[in-house]
């Protein structure tokens, strides 16, 4: 590299951190992989530093209500951000849907799940994993699907429930449950299924799993918060989000 270019480059890097801020972000566990990718690009582009915490939305709610230092929340649902905004814990008008989760019936075994989900009607399995419908949006969506198909009662004795979608994936990935309802983002990369067999549940069978983001009261005066929200709505971030099997 020529000295002049080096000086110019150094100038570029130095100019960014002038307004660089640190931002504490709470992220739903199911969005871990795309967020890490997006955060790296965002940090490079803006010079801001993101401190990412991954966890369950219910736990984040309890922590935020009790003074946690998070400035932005990327939730796994749309109810929690709306509730926080209502309760004065968020900045009004900053809430938006950053991703729409898709449900998939998945087995690690190739050929076990057919592409129409007929396997559910045969009932030729001992257990079926789903996330706790009370706690996890993907669990609620799985329950709606089974109810729509008229199979919820028939299969209920075969349910094993994960407390979140990550644990549900674990049950199926270790084959302790031969099949289960997981998030498409968990078994999907670069536009196709990573392994096993799956049925993409038609979106007519369950209510859309909207994942909303919100700037929290503690992030009100942090310029990085608004910038991150804008970045998430840009094309670069959207492409990453889609590549992990989310809708938008």
């Amino acid at each position: 590299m020529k000295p002049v270019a080096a000086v110019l480059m150094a100038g570029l890097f130095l100019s960014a951190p002038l307004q660089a801020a640190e931002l504490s972000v709470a992220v739903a566990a199911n969005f871990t992989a795309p967020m890490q990718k997006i955060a790296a690009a965002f940090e490079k582009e803006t010079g801001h530093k993101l401190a990412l915490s991954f966890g369950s939305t219910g736990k984040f709610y309890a922590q935020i209500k009790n003074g946690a230092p998070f400035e932005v929340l990327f939730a796994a649902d749309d109810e929690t951000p709306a509730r926080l905004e209502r309760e004065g814990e968020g900045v009004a008008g900053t809430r938006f849907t950053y991703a729409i989760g898709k449900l998939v019936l998945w087995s690690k075994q190739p050929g076990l799940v057919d592409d129409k989900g007929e396997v559910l009607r045969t009932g030729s399995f001992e257990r079926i994993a789903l996330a706790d419908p009370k706690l996890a949006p993907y669990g609620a969506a799985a329950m709606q699907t089974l109810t729509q198909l008229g199979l919820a009662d028939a299969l209920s004795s075969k349910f094993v429930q994960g407390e979140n979608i990550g644990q549900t994936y674990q049950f199926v990935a270790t084959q302790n449950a031969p099949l289960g309802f997981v998030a498409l983002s968990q078994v999907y990369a670069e536009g196709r299924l990573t392994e096993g067999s799956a049925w993409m549940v038609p979106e007519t069978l369950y209510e859309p799993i909207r994942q909303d983001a919100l700037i929290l009261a503690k992030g009100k005066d942090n310029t990085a918060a608004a910038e991150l929200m804008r970045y998430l709505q840009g094309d670069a971030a959207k492409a990453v989000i889609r590549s992990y099997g989310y809708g938008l």
Partner: protein
Amino acid sequence: MLDHHAWQAVWLTLELATLTTVLLLLVATPLAWWLSQTRSRWRAPISAVVTLPLVLPPTVLGFYLLVLMGPQGPLGQLTLALGWGTLSFTFTGLLIGSIIFSLPFAVQPIQHAFESIGARPLEAAATLRASPLDAFFSVALPLARPGLLTAAILSFAHTVGEFGVVLMIGGNIPGKTRVVSTQIYGHVEAMEYAQAHWLAGGMVAFSFVVLLCLSLLKRNGASVMR
């Protein structure tokens, strides 16, 4: 107040803790005796393995158990070959997990009790022509009673408070694998704080009583020995 599901979880927890305690005493007593008497070179590694559940994070232990019990795991293949199906998501699976999880809490107090007896009472028994088995049952075991009691109380209490392992291998099935700790966790996650408080408050009171009993027992330990 407590609803039907909560009582079901309470009952299941007590059942799990009781069975775990009984089985643990049967497993831990001979193991503790062997550890207290042997000069084998296997003593140190086996002692370390027994203590391992004390150090491992419960979710790690639970994850390994899940893999072990799964259809690809060695234990899973064994139970499948025997026609029992897999143990994950069953009460039996929880029981095995609990026994492993609380093993150090049972072995260590009993082992210490055996070690503190010393060699002399057993030598005396031998000079009176008691067989080793006879000496164990009529001399060592009665002298180790405080250790056995401590082990029983700790195993019971530790199983009641068990969470990570149950979460990993349980699958949250009402009446089968949903215990009090996972029920509380569910309430908190679902933001049903009132229900969570009732169960959690009960758990705090229960734990306090157990630990109180334990410390009263320890203070009277000397008189129990006599």
